[in-house]
């Protein structure tokens, strides 16, 4: 099947961090994984070496996707074989996120975040 092409005139990105990818051109398989333990403390304190993904069930628990109930025969007709975009302007990419210009076959992305807040005891 003939593919569509993407045309982007300008791309402006300020920041791409923590395993982010800017992919210009076709790809086949994209697998992204982001795991984070986000600790917020009322007072600034960095203990370090206390984080362990295996301590928290959220990082182990399997993610079950709904099964395809029916086979779908997709036929697409590209009456205009181009996708035009004038400008893409993004301030920040972070945590295994992707900007992809072009075609791909399969994308599989996963994010698991454990949020913990620590507050100081109340003063009476």
């Amino acid at each position, binding site marked *: 099947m003939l*593919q*569509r092409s*993407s045309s982007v005139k300008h791309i402006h990105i300020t920041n791409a961090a923590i395993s982010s990818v800017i992919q210009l051109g*076709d790809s086949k398989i994209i697998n992204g*994984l*982001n795991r*984070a333990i986000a*600790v917020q*403390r009322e*007072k600034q304190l960095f*203990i370090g070496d*206390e984080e362990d993904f295996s*301590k928290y*069930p*959220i990082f182990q*628990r399997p*993610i079950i*996707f709904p099964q395809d109930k*029916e*086979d*779908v*025969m*997709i*036929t*697409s*007709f590209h*009456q*205009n074989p*181009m*996708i035009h*975009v004038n*400008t*893409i*302007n*993004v*301030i*920040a990419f972070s*945590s*295994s*996120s*992707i*900007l*992809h*210009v072009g075609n*791909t*076959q*399969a*994308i*599989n*992305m*996963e*994010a*698991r*975040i*454990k*949020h913990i*807040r*620590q507050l*100081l*005891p109340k003063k009476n």
Partner: protein
Amino acid sequence: MNFQVYNRDIHVGDIRVVGVSSSSILMVGDAEIIQLASAFDTPAESLIIGPFVPLAVEGR
């Protein structure tokens, strides 16, 4: 099921995004399969009020 798609003209002006994060994707193009999963855990027990000690092992 038969699913027919007719791709006509796409002309986009400006795409302005502040942030893309946590295994998200911004894509200009076609994909056959896109599968995204996100697990976010902020239970009540995760709010700890007390003296700051290293995080303890969490039971289920």
